[in-house]
């Protein structure tokens, strides 16, 4: 009878990576009241109006961020759209450690971050809307989706 020697390897029980990771929308990107025919911007550094996400993972690990951005806002109740665009300085990421410096980048491009100083960071988003001269009155909305891939 042939016998097989099967090595026993202990399986270490650790918390799965996904239990330590999260991406959360913290604040909407709000342009407020805009004037017909006048482009209106919100800076990514605006402490009230900028959009904001919170991302948490494991310090020392990496996170890839991808933003799905609208190119127009839709009038609530229908009847119109408003152009919106995002430029190369419209995203700012900053870790929560006191030593963390803000990093400005183009939200149109995917970015890979390494969480050097803290296990979490905030991502702020700005942009600009271009209401037409004859823009219909009302509220216009859109959605920004952040997809975080944790490694």
């Amino acid at each position: 009878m042939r016998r097989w020697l099967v090595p026993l390897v202990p399986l270490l029980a650790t918390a799965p990576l996904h239990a330590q990771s999260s991406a959360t929308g913290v604040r909407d990107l709000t342009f407020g009241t805009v004037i017909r025919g006048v482009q209106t911007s919100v800076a990514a550094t605006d402490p009230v109006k900028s959009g904001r996400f919170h991302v948490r993972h494991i310090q020392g690990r990496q996170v890839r961020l991808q933003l799905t951005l609208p190119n127009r806002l839709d009038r609530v109740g229908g009847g119109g759209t408003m152009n919106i665009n995002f430029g190369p300085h419209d995203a700012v990421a900053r870790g929560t450690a006191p030593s963390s410096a803000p990093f400005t980048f183009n939200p149109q491009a995917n970015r890979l971050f390494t969480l050097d100083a803290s296990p979490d960071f905030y991502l702020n988003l700005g942009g600009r809307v271009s209401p037409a001269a004859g823009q219909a009155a009302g509220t216009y909305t859109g959605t920004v989706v952040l997809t975080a891939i944790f490694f």
Partner: protein
Amino acid sequence: MTRASALVAVLLGVAASAGHAQSANVTVRAQVGAAMTVTGARALSFGNVTAGVASTIPVNGVTSGRFLVNGPGNTGIRLSFTLPGTLVNGGSTLPIGAWTACRNNNNNSTNGCTAFTPSGAGTTATLHPSGNMNVFVGGTVTPAANQAGGLYTGTVTLTVSYI
């Protein structure tokens, strides 16, 4: 595949886990309101002044300047002024300053109005639900002792913007 090699393959599969993804949303909002209008409703008039004697028109004076603002009700606005430092009559100038102002929502009266100092930096306020606001302006002219006679004029500009 041998039983030993199958176990190794499983362990390798556990070690080489791929990244996992999560998504989050925020909403983008913008509001387009009805058009806003600003109208100069009454000139600030000092009438006849005496050389060497300062003359003041308070905001509640019958000849204080008045603007009428109309826009979307309950909207936050900024009131910014461009104020002259002198009134002009040809080659002569008459100093003006010590500007005062007050605003009253939906009320063509200074009773109960909110006082503020008019400036270029602006003052924030909220329009009445009706969308109306009256802004009253006063000031002081300081004619020199040898002030030349004549009619001196200037312009006060009120700019209203959304905040």
